[in-house]
């Protein structure tokens, strides 16, 4: 699993990217309906289940049906029912969120 950490620990917005406070991480959710949050990453507790931000993103982006959607970070699927610590996710992550491929035909 990805473990992205910002190099500029403790930097403020004038000197570099924001770093999360202890036991938190920065999260964005990317979909073809838009990126949530629109004004920069959300700082979330690292023991929070991933599905919390996915639900917020879906509500904000007006995604009505995300059943069978998959969430992934750096190309690896993650489990929305687990938290970030359990999946070794830290720093600033971007969760790619979209529908899983449909089943193929049998010709």
């Amino acid at each position, binding site marked *: 699993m990805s473990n992205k950490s910002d190099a500029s620990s403790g930097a403020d917005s004038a000197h570099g990217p924001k770093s999360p406070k202890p036991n938190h991480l920065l999260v964005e959710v*990317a*979909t*073809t*309906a*838009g*990126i949530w949050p629109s004004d920069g990453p959300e700082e979330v507790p690292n023991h929070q289940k991933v599905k919390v931000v996915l639900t917020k993103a879906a509500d904000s982006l007006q*995604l*009505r*049906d995300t059943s*069978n959607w*998959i969430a992934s970070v750096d*190309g690896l699927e993650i489990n929305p029912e687990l938290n970030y610590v359990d999946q070794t996710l830290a720093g600033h992550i*971007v969760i*790619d969120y*979209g*529908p*899983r*491929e*449909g*089943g*193929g*035909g*049998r*010709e």
Partner: protein
Amino acid sequence: MVVNEAISRTLFEESTKGISGRILEIRGWKVWVNSYPILEVSFVAEGRQELRIKMICDDWNDLPPSVELLSSDGTKLTSLTGVVAAGTQFHAGPHPVKGGPFICMVGTREYHTHGSHLSDLWENYRNNERYRLDSILTQIWNAWKKAKP
């Protein structure tokens, strides 16, 4: 039934307007055409041959998009070899109507016009959010990621 072109265009634009900006960088997508009735996007990833997807969306959404598989230079693929592994969604072909390799997945015209799936009507899916054009493209991308040659 021939769908009203203005309506088809509006639905196309609504369904594809988000295929721009940061999501392209995040996913490794390269947009060649995003103008009704064509959505043409390449999937790019390290260690993979680029796959260019051309979605022909005439009569959208009365009809699902016809999906062509192209090489990076825009020529139609005659084989999947080296590009993507044939399997569940990517079919080596030939498609009985169009010929050549094709994507056999709900939401593509090639699926719904194949003799094996004529009873699986597009009508049952067309109003489902999962079958917007951006969602169909995402499904194809997710299938491509898993189908390494």
